[in-house]
């Protein structure tokens, strides 16, 4: 679709939505639109992700809902079991008639949902956290019908920023510990290549399995090469266990951690006194005041900053999905909603903030047929043709009262750095 016809389609949709809202103004709040969510609520890191998604829905409902209707998020637990997740998704699509599905977290659950539920049914699927490169391949093969999106930036940028930190710190040898799942395997492999390209010796690369009773052996293994620094692509649960072992065995406190350890739980359990030299990487929030507003609001609501694996991603996934529903108008199909995504993530659109007020502002712009640029919790999210986002990066550290950004790395800078390694 070229720009012109897109604008026209968008205008038409906006007009239609506008008219419909006018017509329904009297009974506006009597209607409810359902969206589905399949998230692992019975898992330690899964529950906050679901909580965040529900928070977005509450915010949007407060300012009048989507296309004049209140949103009801029907939440199902995936139990991290593909069969259960797929069945839940199918029930949401068939029995509740949802047009938008949020989830899942694990790629192993998202993938069969995508291939056997959402794509056949023409439902838009938006995942906060699935990171597998298989989705990009699937989309390149033309099998996602443009219905698949994820707000989790691909691991390449994350790894490159980590490598950049190591280089700037003048580190010459490093050990890697990664979570033994699709995300960890991916990032562990990429960053090992990056380190090698930069001439940094990787003294060991150790996979940490889920649910192991102790990571003592793995830590001993990583310590063996006596590295100057440690790179961690772990979730808080194994991160806490492994780093506590690491420090008590006298391992270096110079650590570089991926975004999943940007967590207050991790900081509190390990102890700030050991994390002074730790630098982390993450996708960046935009350099605008609204990003701080998001953090403040989130802190008010949950009594803590949005620091935890996938929280900011979950926020953006939900908000973008709702914005797209608004842009596509009432009773839109999954395809129409997916097609409306560029209208709410338009780099030339009116910037809107990541909160209820931002949503309300977007409603007005979209009604007038305009486009908006959503400045989300993870940055100015923009999807490529495969539903992937690439976002600028940020380097952060732990402090007394939370997590502090040290440096903002623009997308151009990351790209230049990646190019320089090859």
């Amino acid at each position, binding site marked *: 679709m070229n720009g012109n016809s897109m604008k026209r389609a968008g205008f038409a949709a906006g007009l239609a939505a506008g008219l419909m809202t006018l017509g329904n103004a009297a009974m506006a709040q009597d209607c409810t639109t359902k969206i589905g969510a399949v998230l692992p609520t019975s898992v330690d890191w899964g*529950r906050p992700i679901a909580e965040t998604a529900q928070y977005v829905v509450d915010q949007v409902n407060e300012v009048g809902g989507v296309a004049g209707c209140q949103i009801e998020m029907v939440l199902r637990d995936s139990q991290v079991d593909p069969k259960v997740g797929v069945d839940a998704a199918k029930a949401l699509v068939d029995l509740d008639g949802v047009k938008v599905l949020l989830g899942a977290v694990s790629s192993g659950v998202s993938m069969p949902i995508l291939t056997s539920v959402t794509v056949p049914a023409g439902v838009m699927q938006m995942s906060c956290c699935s990171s597998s490169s298989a989705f990009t391949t699937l989309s390149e093969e033309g099998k996602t019908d443009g219905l698949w999106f994820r707000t989790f930036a691909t691991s390449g940028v994350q790894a490159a920023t980590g490598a950049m930190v190591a280089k700037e710190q003048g580190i010459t040898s490093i050990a890697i510990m990664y979570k033994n799942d699709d995300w960890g395997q991916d990032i562990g492999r990429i960053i090992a290549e990056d380190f090698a390209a930069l001439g940094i010796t990787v003294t060991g690369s150790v996979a940490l399995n889920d649910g*192991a009773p102790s990571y003592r052996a793995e830590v001993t*293994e990583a310590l063996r090469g006596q590295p100057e620094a440690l790179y961690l692509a772990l979730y808080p649960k194994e991160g806490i266990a492994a780093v506590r072992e690491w420090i*008590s065995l006298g391992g270096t406190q110079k650590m570089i951690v991926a975004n999943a350890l940007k967590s207050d739980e991790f900081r509190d359990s390990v102890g700030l006194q050991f994390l002074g030299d730790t630098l982390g990487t993450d996708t960046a929030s935009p350099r605008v005041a609204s990003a701080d507003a998001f953090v403040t609001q989130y802190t008010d609501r949950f009594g803590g900053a949005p620091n935890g694996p996938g929280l900011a991603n979950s926020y953006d996934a939900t908000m973008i999905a709702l914005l797209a529903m608004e842009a596509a108008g009432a009773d839109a199909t999954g395809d129409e909603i997916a097609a409306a995504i560029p209208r709410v993530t338009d780099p030339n659109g009116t910037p809107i903030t990541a909160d209820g007020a931002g949503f309300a502002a977007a409603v007005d712009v979209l009604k007038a047929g305009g486009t908006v640029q959503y400045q989300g919790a993870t940055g100015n999210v923009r999807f490529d043709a495969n539903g992937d986002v690439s976002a600028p990066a940020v380097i952060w550290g732990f402090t007394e009262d939370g997590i502090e950004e040290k440096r903002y790395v623009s997308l151009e800078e990351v790209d230049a750095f990646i190019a320089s390694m090859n």
Partner: protein
Amino acid sequence: MIQSLLDGILVGSILSLGAIGLTMAMHMLRFANFAHAELLSIGAYAALVFDGLFSALFPPLAAAIAPLSLTWALSLAIIISMAVTAGSAILVDRFVFARVRAIGGELSMVFASFGVALVLRNLISLIFGLKTQLYSQDIVFAVVISADPLLLVKPDQVFALVAALVIMLILHLVLSRTTLGYSLRAVAENPTLAQVSGIRLSRMIALIWIIGGGLAAVAGVFYGLTNQISPVIGRDLVLPIFAATIVGGIGSIYGAVLGGFLVGIASNLALVILPSGYSPAVPFLIILAVLLIRPNGLFGEARE
């Protein structure tokens, strides 16, 4: 290499404590109790609650016993936790296992224990949340006991090992020197004959749960002390504990002790040979190897 051996022994003592209770229940009640590891969770959380309570009521107790991270409050809490855990074990037996035992066979018991494990684990996570918790935020540094080859041990782990060995010794004395021990062993050998000679079976069953629950509580607290506490302790430990029991031979307390150490050492040594991603498979490869040579485990007897 030597470090891995040492680590294995330190981790193994916790598995041994868990395996003793399991092997007794498996032998005398004749079923594989998949809920046994949940007793470790109950123990760990009960101690967490009472540790907090004692520290709040009597602040001096919150001081750590140097060089450990163990506090006086927690030491007291362990004793209460043993009682709470043993009590829960008896309750579960009374309300579930005893009834299933009365009408169903061995496999019904195995599946009932699976169900009980699911319920207990999720009840704990409902009450205490899914997040990781710690008895003490402090990290106690490991002590260098040899520079070349580099050998490191954590004081907490050494304490856990010594305490575990002492508890095992006491258990050994009770079982081999007291009438209670004789009765218990008689029931294990032949329940019908033991009843004929005047031993009350129900009391012996309660005793098994008291011993098993108490040891599990200690194991759970030690695990929490040297690692951390989370609702999935049971899920993470159930397989290593089973492995220890099977390797040692079902019914053999000494086998369970040895099995615990073997499994601990094996999973630590495994990384020397295999990439770490494969480590979950290692305890089972050991089991397989042991069973191929000794089909009833190291100290188990053939039972027909």
